């Protein structure tokens, strides 16, 4: 709750049912003194009577969640440790709510995952947990804080901890998550959560709170990307308003407007009404351009060099939230930055195993919920896209059912793109069009 000037860490907390995730978050807040008295009383109430403090009740905010003792949808908690702001997205563990986990993971810098130490000899890494880690990896989260929980129930055994740590490291490493901190904890009693525990002399690393403070947030891409949200009328012309999705923009900068590929310069730049010379992502700005071009919502203003590709046909990874039939026969809408366009899935390339991200050929035209597929998409109007890996904003989209407005899938722009014919370099370097 304290103010501060440091970057905010977005953290997605994941784990299987009963791994103790909500308990850990409640404990993080309680032990760092960030729980108000009334919230504490609320978390100590059982069926209307006062009882023992139950850290899990701090986050489970829906009636159904408290009744069933599970997390159904993402709940957000706002905390700060050592002056650093942390937004914790408490994600559900149940398979049927995996889409909510994707909602939480899509903005995350770090995944906080829980593993139940009492289950180490059996199926420690459940498919559900592997699936959560795979989603995190898919969305580009490269940092993992793994809590081996319920250490009190295994007598704080170093052997158990090391064995689990080995498994976690192997699985996460295979998924491309390389920055890993593994911590032995008891969320219920608060060991190594905020306070260092004397019960784990074999462990010399950070507590969970310390690990969160040290997280490096995602770096924003350097190429200038300004998706246009609105054209604002001003005396003598128009300003194009949007939030910078990468790089910086400055007055006099040579820019290209996509998909039309017209080049021009930034005449003036405004940060929420105030004229400035330069702005850096993720600032919300408005620009005036030197030439009177036809620019509108959904267009993208980018640096002339290092501009994104313009495509009507692209290869993408789709994460489906619900089961879908007749995938290649249906009509969709795609929302990419501020543009909505009609789209089709022209072909399905492969289906990806959510527990290890391995690809297999796909034969059916229908898939169950939580499926990840690689597909080729055909777009009614061209989009200016980057690979997801190089810019998560211009490299991502959502897939919408055009008849029901339901959001069906998250899309990540893949590596191979079919470009909009012509010679792109010629279009980009041809200078301003004749007006």
């Amino acid at each position, binding site marked *: 709750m304290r103010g501060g000037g440091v970057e*905010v860490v977005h953290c997605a907390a994941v784990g299987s049912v009963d791994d103790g995730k909500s308990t850990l978050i409640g404990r993080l807040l309680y032990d760092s003194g960030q729980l108000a008295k009334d919230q504490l009383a609320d978390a100590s109430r059982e069926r209307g009577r006062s009882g023992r403090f139950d850290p899990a009740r701090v986050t489970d905010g829906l009636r159904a969640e408290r009744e069933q003792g599970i997390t159904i949808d993402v709940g957000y908690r706002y905390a700060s440790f050592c002056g650093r702001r942390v937004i914790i997205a408490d994600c559900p563990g149940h398979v049927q709510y995996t889409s909510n986990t994707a909602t939480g993971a899509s903005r995350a810098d770090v995944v906080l995952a829980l593993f139940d130490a009492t289950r180490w000899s059996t199926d420690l890494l459940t498919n559900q947990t592997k699936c959560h880690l795979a989603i995190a990896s898919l969305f580009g989260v490269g940092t993992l804080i793994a809590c081996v929980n319920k250490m009190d129930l295994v007598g704080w055994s170093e052997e158990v901890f090391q064995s689990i740590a080995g498994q976690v490291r192997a699985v996460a490493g295979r998924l491309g998550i390389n920055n890993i901190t593994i911590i032995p904890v008891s969320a219920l009693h608060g060991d190594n959560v905020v306070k260092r525990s004397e019960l784990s002399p074999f462990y010399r690393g950070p507590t969970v709170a310390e690990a969160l403070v040290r997280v490096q947030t995602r770096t924003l891409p350097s190429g200038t990307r300004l998706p246009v949200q609105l054209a604002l009328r001003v005396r003598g012309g128009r300003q194009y308003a949007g939030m910078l999705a990468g790089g910086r923009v400055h007055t006099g900068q040579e820019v290209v407007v996509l998909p039309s590929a017209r080049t021009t310069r930034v005449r003036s730049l405004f940060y929420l009404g105030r004229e400035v*010379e*330069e*702005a850096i992502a993720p600032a919300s700005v408005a620009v005036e351009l030197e030439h009177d071009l036809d620019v509108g919502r959904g267009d993208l203003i980018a640096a002339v060099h290092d501009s994104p590709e313009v495509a009507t046909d692209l290869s993408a990874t789709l994460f489906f939230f619900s089961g879908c039939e007749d995938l290649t026969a249906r009509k969709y809408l795609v929302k990419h930055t501020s543009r909505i366009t009609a789209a089709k899935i022209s072909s399905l390339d492969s289906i990806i195993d959510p527990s290890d991200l391995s690809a297999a050929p796909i034969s059916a035209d229908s898939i169950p919920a939580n499926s990840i597929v690689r597909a080729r998409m055909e777009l009614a109007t061209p989009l200016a896209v980057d690979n997801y890996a190089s810019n998560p904003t211009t490299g991502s989209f959502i897939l919408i059912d055009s008849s029901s*407005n339901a959001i069906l899938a*998250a899309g990540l722009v893949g590596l191979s793109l079919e470009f909009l014919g012509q010679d792109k370099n010629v279009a980009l370097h041809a200078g301003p069009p004749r007006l």
Partner: protein
Amino acid sequence: MDSTLYPHHPASAHLDHLESHSVFVLREIAGECDRPVLLFSGGKDSAVLCHLAQKAFYPSPIPFPLLQVDTGHNFPEVLEFRDVRAKELDCELIVASVQEAIDKGLVKDPGEGESRNRLQSAVLLDVIARQGFDACIGGARRDEDKARAKERVVSLRSRFGQWEPRHQRPELWSIYYGKVNPGEHLRVFPLSDWTELDIWLYIQREQIELPNIYYAHRRLVLERDGMLLAHSPYLTARAGEKVFEETVRFRTVGDMTCTAAIRSRAMTPAEVIEEIMTFQVSERGASRADDRFSEAAMEERKREGYF
């Protein structure tokens, strides 16, 4: 003219991020929805929201009307502020009156001294349907309450105006989808990621005007269920309750019958910020009598269509 924006004064950078993201949300809704409306209660969060909306579309005017649901039991200071601010912003102000709805028989008067908070939902849904609003932009924050913590930034309401917390639209990255089916509408919360402290730091930085009841003043109050409630024509002392004068301020502003004051000497945003740092009780826990009765009070009201 400033030469660069970031890096700024470090305490300000965090507010810049919040500000830019909120503006992004407001612009998306303006770009994608047919008839949005901004819920303007005259409280501090909606004052911040109006300020952000003004910046988002500057130099153009705010491209949507303001809407207030007047319970008939609002603080007169807040109503006056509401009218002045709407005029300054040059925005159409729509007032949906709970009293009128009671007179017409649309809703039932809960009786003297009882909160009309719950009635606001029916009145709000009625005006949404009559005016055909497809998006209601509100100042709610996720840190206010456990049920609010479960909200999306852009949250769908069914044809019955209801929130279905188990079937929310997935909300990936910062892609907000503004289209709805006929009869449905969206609730939009651009301040989702702001905390009470952020709001006050921003009020201080931007010198945003607020109704004076947010700052310490002398007032006649009475104590009920451990809370200080304003003595007013709508709330009179019951047997055994004493009316007395106290130096207080309000942490939130709503219906006079259920919004509690706190003892405070904070006269400026800086003093309020200092005070917030020492609080041990949450904003709603300290000032909303209506949320204390049941653990799921907010969820229940939200399901019915509350802000």
